[in-house]
């Protein structure tokens, strides 16, 4: 171990960051399935997916800010970005994605409701909705048709943007030639597909949970369709990860022995047990069964819920193994260190738990402000029940 390598540079917060942006990108891709690819079955999750993406995106920069030695200097990334740094692109990609894609699309999609609510609500809420109309109260059919057209274009631009947002996170790690655990051109691609898995699983679970909470029946046609997409994208994700693994084992370059030792010792539980067996193979088998065997609705729903939760755990473990695992071995390939997570420090466990729950709080506020369900569905059962 080189003496400066003993302490880890990137903590659990940097594990959270790709996890959160992954959920954003994945949720958006799910929304785009409705909008661009016209998968009508999953329409009930369209708005929920957009609001989920927004609430997680709002939290995404917080772990980074907290991790910086000098957070007050972070605006320098906007003013004096370094042209050869992948990280310098973060601010631009983030702002672009937040303002030009997500907020714009949500605004266009909700404009009619916002205008109606600004007329029907009272007090502070009325003011809030007034501000959200941005001074435009025209909801004539022609104007709404234009909204819909523009929103379609925004989603179209949004798909490559979502890929960029998360592919860039993969590139941050994949481009570090000093670290053989990270350095791989597959890294951005693996990150994108794992992002889709986590985002789709996340929205599916949120949809199931919110529907239950509202006392309604889950639209089985919708979750069937989501689970099918989850299954296929999961297969691509798993294949890519296995390709990376097989490639490493077969090439067995100078780093192999050191990394192999790590995977069989410190990373055995998070990598082999949690990420691969529990978080990938188990949900894949469960989803496979739902695809080939005709099961009763209730069983399917439960299997989807379990697979979704396991997938979320598996993807978190994947981020952990990349970020933390990549810092546990020495760049000399001689020696290892350990990561001890603090509890109450700036980068400790409590902050990490808080940052994981914060997007759910944001989502709750957003759902209250901009209800993602059809207006009359609170009284009538969802179609397909």
């Amino acid at each position, binding site marked *: 171990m080189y003496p400066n390598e003993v302490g880890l540079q990137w903590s659990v917060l940097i594990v959270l960051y790709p996890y959160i942006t992954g959920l954003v990108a994945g949720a958006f891709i799910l929304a785009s399935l409705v909008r661009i690819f016209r998968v009508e079955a999953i329409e009930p999750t369209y708005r929920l997916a957009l609001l989920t993406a927004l609430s997680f995106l709002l939290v995404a920069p917080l772990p980074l800010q907290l991790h910086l030695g000098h957070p007050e200097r972070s605006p320098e990334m906007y003013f004096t970005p370094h042209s050869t*740094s992948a990280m310098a692109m973060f601010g631009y990609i983030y702002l672009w994605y937040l303002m030009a894609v997500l907020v714009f699309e949500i605004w266009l999609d909700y404009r009619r409701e916002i205008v109606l609510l600004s007329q029907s609500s009272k007090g502070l809420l009325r003011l809030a909705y007034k501000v959200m109309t941005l001074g435009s109260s025209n909801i004539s059919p022609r104007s709404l048709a234009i909204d819909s057209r523009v929103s379609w274009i925004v989603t179209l631009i949004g798909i490559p943007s979502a890929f960029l947002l998360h592919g860039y996170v993969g590139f941050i790690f994949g481009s570090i030639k000093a670290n053989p655990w990270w350095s791989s051109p597959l890294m951005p691609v693996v990150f994108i597909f794992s992002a889709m898995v986590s985002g789709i699983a996340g929205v599916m679970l949120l949809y199931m949970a919110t529907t239950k909470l509202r006392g309604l029946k889950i639209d089985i046609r919708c979750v069937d369709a989501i689970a099918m997409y989850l299954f296929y994208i999961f297969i691509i994700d798993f294949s890519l990860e296995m390709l990376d693994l097989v490639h490493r084992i077969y090439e067995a370059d100078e780093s192999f022995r050191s990394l192999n030792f790590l995977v069989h010792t410190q990373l055995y539980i998070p990598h082999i047990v949690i990420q691969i067996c529990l978080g990938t193979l188990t949900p894949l088998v469960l989803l496979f069964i739902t695809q080939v065997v005709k099961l009763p609705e209730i069983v399917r729903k439960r299997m989807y819920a379990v697979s979704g939760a396991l997938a979320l755990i598996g993807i978190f473990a994947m981020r952990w193994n990349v970020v933390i695992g990549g810092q546990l071995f*020495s760049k000399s390939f001689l020696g290892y260190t350990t990561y001890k997570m603090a509890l109450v420090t700036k980068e400790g466990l409590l902050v990490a738990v808080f940052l994981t729950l914060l997007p759910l709080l944001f989502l709750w506020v957003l759902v209250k402000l901009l209800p993602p369900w059809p207006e009359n569905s609170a009284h009538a059962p969802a179609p397909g029940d």
Partner: protein
Amino acid sequence: MNLNRRQMLILLPAAAIAWKAVLAGTPEEAPNYTMSDHWWGMLIDIPKCIGCGNCVRACQTENNVPDGYFRTWVERYHVSDWEMKNPQDIMTNPLTDPQVISPDGGKEGFPVDTDASGKYFFVPKMCNHCADSPCTQVCPVGATFVAPDGVVLVDQKYCLGCAYCVQACPYGCRYIHPEKRVADKCTLCYHRITKGLTTACCEACPTGARQLVDLKNPKDPIHEFLKTHSVQVLKPQMATGAKVLYNGLDGSVR
């Protein structure tokens, strides 16, 4: 001049960026030093190093290096007889790894060896002041850079402390300063070499195992040395353009 709202929206950010560029750009004056006349590096003569740790102590004192962090450090390698007989096993079999120690960076020297077999040697390490340095490449704000004289420096008033450069350095030469919360590393004693002095580590080395070299100076003895010796850099496969040259480097050194 009449500016409407739209023009202002474009002009204001542009003006802000221009103003930041003006603020960023004025280097400190050094009237007797011309950066473009130099191309600094270091020669480390492994057979001459006795592992006394003078360089580590001198560096710490000269540069206020915090305890537990190192701008330079010394490693002691022990390659066993078995390894020398079975070179095919180096880096493929964990039982045959060379044993490397660097207690407190070798600051207080090394314990007496108990195993008399095999060979022992010391490897002083430091920032390689790479010409194509991966650490400066990744800095999101350009706070770390290669100066025109080949020294890799950090502007600590500008560094965000994101630690991306620490991750990117293949040699483990950077750290986040625990109090300043910014990246810190060997500056090749820039405050000394720009005044015509040598570095603190070279000054303190009792055997001349470390020598500051100016590859642009035709009178520097390094040129003669390079003609008569086989020198190597660490991890040449990284293609970083490292400028710390090692004489007598063993193949087991990583």
